[in-house]
């Protein structure tokens, strides 16, 4: 193995690479998310005509995957490196492959494959088509062309690249157990994350007050609705994220039956769809300020503004 970058170096290399490609470098969101996709920098910004190129790290919580810090590859919280390119450029695959080169992965010395994998997020009313990208048999990235978000057609289409940071790191560092990874020189992954992994697992599976959480879910849902009524897109979306995380925790705790599950998902999706619509409307009111081509922006505004 030529490169044995630490996790920190991997993040820096990706930041550097995508910075050079003209991406806005953002930071993780401050509300719990299950994936980088849930961050409003992706979910909401994938909607509408505005150009949007962004990259960020997203610590992603998956309560059901918690294993008390004992499993070599499953984590309550892992890290994703998320890139959104909108509209998806014609050379997006080449851009992605060059990012692997930037990490020291020479494609000629590996087996890199694009294996069909379609993505769907029922809670967001979102789906897309694409691949998982295999590096010598290991899935290291999810590559998706968003087709719909919040039930709305994406136009133009964004390409989403989601790198599994731990996966890539364990490959580069040739490590079998995620806790043996080097976060930065001299600091192991275990020394930082073993305790929270254990505690979050214990909390989720043994301690969490599921009755209280069910109430939270209802409260968050209600508050999201109130924010929506006041046309406050981002606050409403934050409560949707809260709902989603609470749902994940309830689900992991085994507190949701199969039939109830569908109804929970449906409730979150209903909110997400309303928010998506409202986001578009509000961006339209602002005349899509991120569009460089102002004439085109004006055309979009005309197209999307309902005639009175």
């Amino acid at each position: 193995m030529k490169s044995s970058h630490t996790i920190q170096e991997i993040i820096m290399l990706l930041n550097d690479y995508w910075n050079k490609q003209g991406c806005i470098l953002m930071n993780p969101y401050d509300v719990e998310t299950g994936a980088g996709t849930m961050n409003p920098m992706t979910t909401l910004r994938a909607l509408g005509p505005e150009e949007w190129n962004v990259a960020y790290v997203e610590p992603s919580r998956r309560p059901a995957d918690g294993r008390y810090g004992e499993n070599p590859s499953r984590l309550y919280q892992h890290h994703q490196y998320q890139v959104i390119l909108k509209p998806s450029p014609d050379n997006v695959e080449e851009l992605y492959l060059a990012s692997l080169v930037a990490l020291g992965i020479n494609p000629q010395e590996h087996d890199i494959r694009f294996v069909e994998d379609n993505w769907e997020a029922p809670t967001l009313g979102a789906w897309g088509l694409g691949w998982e990208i295999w590096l010598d048999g290991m899935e290291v990235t999810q590559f998706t062309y968003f087709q719909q978000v919040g039930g709305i057609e994406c136009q133009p289409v964004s390409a989403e690249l989601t790198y599994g940071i731990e996966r890539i790191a364990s490959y580069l560092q040739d490590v079998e157990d995620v806790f043996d990874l080097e976060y930065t020189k001299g600091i192991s992954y275990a020394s930082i994350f073993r305790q929270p992994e254990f505690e979050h697992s214990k909390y989720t599976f043994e301690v969490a007050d599921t009755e209280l959480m069910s109430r939270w879910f209802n409260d968050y849902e209600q508050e999201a609705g109130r924010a929506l009524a006041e046309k406050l897109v981002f606050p409403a979306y934050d409560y949707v994220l809260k709902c989603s995380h609470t749902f994940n925790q309830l689900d992991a705790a085994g507190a949701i039956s199969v039939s109830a599950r569908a109804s929970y998902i449906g409730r979150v999706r209903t909110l997400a769809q309303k928010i998506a619509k409202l986001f578009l409307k509000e961006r339209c009111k602002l005349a899509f300020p991120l569009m460089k081509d102002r004439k085109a922006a004006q055309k979009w505004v005309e197209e999307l503004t309902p005639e009175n």
Partner: protein
Amino acid sequence: MNTYLLEIGLEEMPAQMILPAIEQLKTLANKTCEQHQLSFNDIRTFSTPRRLAVTLAGLPEKQADRIIELKGPPAAIAKDSENNWSKAAQGFAAKNGVDVADLEIREFEGKDYLFVQRQELGKPVPELLQEEAEQWISQLNFPKNMRWGSYRMRFIRPIRWIVSLWNDAVVPLKLEMVEAGNDARGHRFLSSGKRLFSQAADYEKQLEKLYVMADFKKRRESIISQVKKLEQKHGFKVELDEKLLTEVTNLVEWPTVLLGNFEEDFLDLPSEVLITSMAVHQRYFPVFEKTAGSHSTTDPNEGKSSGAGKLLPHFVTVRNGDDKALDTVRRGNAKVLRARLSDARFFYLDDQKRALEDFRSKAEKVVFFQQRGTQNQRVQRIVELSVFIAQKLELSKTQQKHVHRIAELSKFDLETQVVYEFPELQGLMGEKYAHLKNEANLVCRGIREHYHPRNSKDSLPEDVETVPVALADKLDLLTTAFSLDMIPSGAADPYALRRTAQGIIQLILGLGLGLDPEDLTYEAIRLLNEQQKLDLDYTKLQENLLDFLLQRQRWFLQERGIRYDLIEAVLQNQPGKKQPQESRGSGALPVEQLQFADFLSQHLETDIFKRSVEAIVRAENISKKYPNKIVEKIDESALKLPEEKNFFAALQPILDSDQNTRWTPEKYLKQLHSIEPVVTGFFDDVMVMDDDPVKCGNRLWLCMQLAKWSRQHLDLQALVFA
């Protein structure tokens, strides 16, 4: 010799969609040539994950000139009263660029019309292809399309380039996102720099130099021969499952086969877990010890390890590239497999720590279908329905005990961690775990085999004790879904209900079970209705179920090669035909209908059978035509003519003998043939519709009884003779 090449360059297509797409492209190209009367010597197609291509070789420079004939307005309006060409005629001539003098009048379907002959000059072929090739692209059909970038087009995956070449010249072709050129794109990582295709005819050869094997078959052969070399070198056997081989061939442009290893400890895991991890999750080929009986390709529907020896701690995978740094690739793949197998081992050992009953209590929380109870309640229904069927099949008390146990344990493994991770191992893990808990072999096997048959080619359960459970499982799924109005229509069948119903028919007919679908469906509905305290409409639900099963029965008979009209004749009077209750004549069981169809297939074309059919159909038609004239009861004393006496005498024993015994096709045919001459004679010499109401009524009664008897067996009216 002219060659045209069209190459559509794409981002990686889903593997299973490539071959169907290339077939479509071939059809479209052929259609163009046919429509435009273009001759060619050879059409070839090429495909890789990143390209779909077709070459047409031996095309002419120019389409041949053609005389085409066009029909115009009717001759009646071609001339005016003064015998001058009318406006309509002049317009028709002008439109086609000819003089009115060239118009001809000819008959077409009994009427005279104006006709004109026009010479159509052949177009240069490249010009023609320019328009057509664009159509090929837009007419390709995929099950799921996508959009990308800011383009409006929908396609399987983004189109990134087009090559459209007439010999050495680009045939211009423009899509929204790309213009055709002659850039030769090679393997993504192995070729670099800009290259051009020099000749359309050299497409395959040139790509080969750029590390792309464009021909699917050659790529497949290359993989097979590389695998064979490994087999020879190491003396083992690689199982090349056909479906997986096709998929892998469609994942690579330049295949290099490599051998990897995993730790021997993992061989303690059930081999199916190992094989699934390798074949399904990683697309690796598993490796077996060589035995005398092993063969190179295994039927995917049979057991995975049939014919081959013990599983070995190796795997074979195909890299999309050459053999550079092959060791890195090998180690990477081994690492991934190791992680997967460690996970599987953890689950496998953890599952074993629990009692089988524990899993069942877990299933209490799992909802099967909304408003239709939990998984445990479903199992309870399967248990009761299984025992009901076992009794119908007259199984012994001991056998029934086994049936009960198989049914009880049929679904526990769905709650195990291994099945959660590897859903395709349902049943099989149940068998393994039940073994470890010392359940009887028969029961263990039943847990696995009650899922059979899983498709039209799958085997049936080995033990008679498994059969009731196999039927009950499928009947309950079908009934539950139908009770929620989830009845498949069109292509949509998310719960595979067609296959489920088909399984029921395969079991009943394949094993020759004397079961009545009416009994089975009624009991299944009753169990569901009572357990869930529903208020189901029995009649409607049962009718839907029977109808659905009947369709699958028809399918079964068709697959067996039974003549279409005979199938209809045999399946007569079924609920699907919505006939009134009393005429649901025979109450024939599906298995009896099958016997009938099989037996009669051999006799359909004999003269005596044809005459018999004619006689019975005549009798049926006339008795149906005058229902009010038939006497209530025959007046024997009024039978005077020898033909009617003979008829009555021949009919009597047939009606009597059929009273209380189940009929057989042999007996039916014998009786049919024996009465035929009598009936034919009767129709030849006796006037049925006599003026005397008693005579007439008697004769109609004879016809009616005969027809009724025959219809209890099959509907002869359905038969069609050439």
